């Protein structure tokens, strides 16, 4: 499969150059450039000397990788098992899905037609093992290898098709072994002793004597429902309608398995090969079509860049990425199960629209440091284990400032509560005060060098209640004492 060939002017040979050891060398070339006798690896100066009229572009490996990823995404429409092979190849595991597309040969033709429509030049091979298919696609000619005939087909291929390290290929070639057939005819042990076990493994796999599964680039979903459309759909209502049908299908599948999904993903395959994925998570396993439909509706509604159908979607797929056991709902007499379910459905809905980090609940920590005493965690996460709470702590403010705000305060005695203080340009007269409550930093933590604070709970003459503190112990801190307001009581 060669890179994107989108030369503005088809008649001018196009080359991509890359800096290798200080010299600009051709890294990829167009069909025209190949026709006039250029080859990758040539320096740009040499190429220019041969063909003065050259269109030159910088080689951009990241863009190439991104393009390959997009094609791989598009290939998900045939099988969920897709893996990348080098910088310009894809391996699809089509075990068990060929019958959906009319057999191996028809499927191969179908895949090729689909990708050729996007301007790609490709070689496709269907074979019994990924290695055999790979070797044939890269060094042989395309087609379908009949079952069990891999060894015959790959025999004439050069050693390079095995994808071995450079020195092994050189070594084998020097020994006079040029094709895979030559290698296969020799006893294995001396080869392994000289070139390592990896050579034998490769050879066995390429010959089809041993088969391993590919490692797919995306995790395999727990279950999938999909709809194909002969005529691509584009209207938002149609898309949601299709999604609704898929949700119903999935709900039946999940019910049969006694499971509920925690993470769902809808994939929209556009006719032009672009794939858009929308993921939704739930706080507890769910298979209720109505609530799932609402979640997806919220999510689609809140998308920063809306779903662009382009020329329409020809395949919509819904996958359960993560499933957990879900027993049929047993409602307790007090209706509590229903209540919790409703609340978690609400949390899911809000989290789908606002984002998980905006729908929160408190998690208490067992510490005396007021800044760390509680943290906010997404409410959609499973509830944290209950932390033993202190029985009756000292009063804490309802609102806390983060960071504390500096004030000017005047205390009667050096280590006493303030008499009056000025905060946000307003002078407050202290009427009632309680304290100090001395809170030291936790010495077992790294940031323990913050000075000890003396906290006071004070009330001003208008009844407003504050939580103030003075930094540092009085006689150990140089300079005038610094005061802060840390929180406000109702």
């Amino acid at each position, binding site marked *: 499969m060669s890179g994107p060939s989108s030369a503005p002017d088809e008649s001018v040979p196009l080359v991509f150059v890359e800096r290798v050891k200080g010299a600009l060398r051709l890294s990829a070339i167009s069909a025209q450039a190949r026709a006039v006798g250029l080859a990758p690896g040539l320096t740009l100066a040499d190429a220019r000397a041969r063909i003065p009229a050259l269109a030159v572009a910088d080689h951009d490996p990241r863009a190439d990788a991104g393009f390959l990823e997009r094609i791989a995404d598009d290939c998900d429409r045939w099988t969920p098992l897709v893996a990348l092979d080098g910088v310009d190849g894809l391996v699809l595991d089509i075990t068990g899905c060929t019958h959906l597309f009319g057999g191996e040969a028809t499927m191969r033709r179908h895949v090729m037609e689909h990708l050729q429509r996007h301007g790609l030049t490709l070689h496709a091979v269907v074979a019994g093992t990924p290695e055999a298919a790979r070797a044939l696609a890269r060094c042989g000619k395309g087609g379908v290898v009949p079952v069990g005939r891999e060894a015959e087909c790959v025999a004439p291929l050069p050693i390079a098709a095995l994808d071995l390290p450079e020195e092994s290929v050189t070594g084998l070639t020097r020994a006079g072994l040029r094709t895979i057939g030559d290698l296969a005819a020799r006893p294995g042990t001396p080869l392994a002793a000289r070139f390592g076990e990896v050579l034998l493994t490769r050879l066995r796999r390429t010959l089809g004597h041993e088969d391993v599964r590919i490692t797919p680039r995306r995790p395999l979903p727990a279950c999938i429902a999909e709809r194909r459309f002969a005529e691509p759909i584009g209207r938002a209502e149609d898309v949601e309608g299709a999604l609704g049908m898929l949700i119903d299908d999935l709900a039946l599948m999940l019910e049969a398995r006694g499971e509920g999904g925690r993470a769902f993903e809808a994939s929209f395959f556009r006719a032009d090969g672009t794939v858009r994925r929308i993921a939704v998570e739930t706080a507890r396993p769910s298979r209720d079509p109505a609530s799932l439909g609402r979640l997806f509706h919220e999510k689609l509604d809140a998308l920063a860049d809306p779903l662009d159908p382009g020329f329409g979607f020809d395949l919509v797929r819904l996958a359960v990425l993560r499933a957990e056991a879900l027993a049929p709902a047993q409602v307790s007499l007090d209706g509590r199960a229903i209540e919790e379910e409703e609340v978690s459905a609400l949390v899911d809905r809000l989290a789908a629209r606002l984002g998980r980090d905006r729908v929160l609940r408190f998690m*208490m920590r067992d510490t005396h440091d007021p800044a760390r005493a509680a943290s906010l965690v997404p409410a959609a996460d499973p*509830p944290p284990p209950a932390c033993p709470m202190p029985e009756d702590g000292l009063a804490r403010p309802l*609102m806390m400032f983060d960071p504390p705000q500096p004030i000017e305060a005047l205390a009667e005695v050096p280590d006493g509560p303030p008499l009056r203080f000025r905060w946000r340009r307003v002078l407050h007269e202290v*009427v*009632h005060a309680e304290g100090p409550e001395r809170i030291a930093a936790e010495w077992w933590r790294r940031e323990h060098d913050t000075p000890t604070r003396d906290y006071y*709970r004070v009330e001003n003459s208008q*009844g407003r209640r504050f939580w103030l503190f003075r930094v540092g112990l009085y006689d150990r801190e140089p300079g005038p004492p610094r005061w802060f307001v840390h929180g406000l*009581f*109702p």
Partner: protein
Amino acid sequence: MRAAHDVSALRQMLAGLEAERLPSASSAFSLGAAGPDGVLAETLARGALHEIYAAEGADMPAASGFSLALALRAAQRSGEEPPQSKLPMRPIVWVRQDFIDSEAGRLDAHGLRGLGLDPARLILVRARDPEQALRAAGDAVRCAALGAVLLEPWGEPKALDLTATRRLALRAGASGVTFFLLRMAESPSASVAVTRWLVRPILSTPLAADAPGAPAFAVTLLRHRGGLNGHAWNLEWDHESCSFRDITPLSRAVVPVPAGRPARQDAATQGEGTGDVRPFQRAG
């Protein structure tokens, strides 16, 4: 004649049946303090929109505290439900706008607990802008399993107009979830709230050693659907029983006033220049 009598009797019976079906007693909540409860008498409706106003920004903590206290009263399970009510309180959703966190401080879990709310029963929703806050709160109030929903937008957003409050009130009525809207403004804007409270803090009843006491509020009922406008009470919140208490002049008088301290008004008028020394006792 006889038939007409039958029909009217039937009508009365039907009315009685319907009244029974409608949750009357359970749909109202009380403050727990004798003063306001005597006046309001079962007219604080659950499943309705209540507004709490702070006259100025510095009163917002008091208004928040008062709203949360009301929400706690409203979220408590009513007596109609099974008496073995070991059920935890219904969750409360508090929708706040991001900006408030930096301006008025973030909510603190221990502070919530200090008011009598188990922090685990609170779902905090943080919204970027008033529209988002309004929409999230509008969604939340439809969930009948909640005890109460609090909405705290920043300032007086345009989005929160008469139509928006009517929509919230209708949804609250349909689900039975009580909705509290915290607002800060000089002059209240139009809304369809059932009650509108103006809250400011007052001096608490000091504890031992002159320590500030329980949260104390001066609340004024600016508006009431039943026509009980204009009533004002001084209340303090008791977090242990989760109810309000009247602050009577009597309870204030028994508190020993520290010797040498001028009366409250004097302190306010004389300001900084008093220069008198008052004995200070440190809390144990």
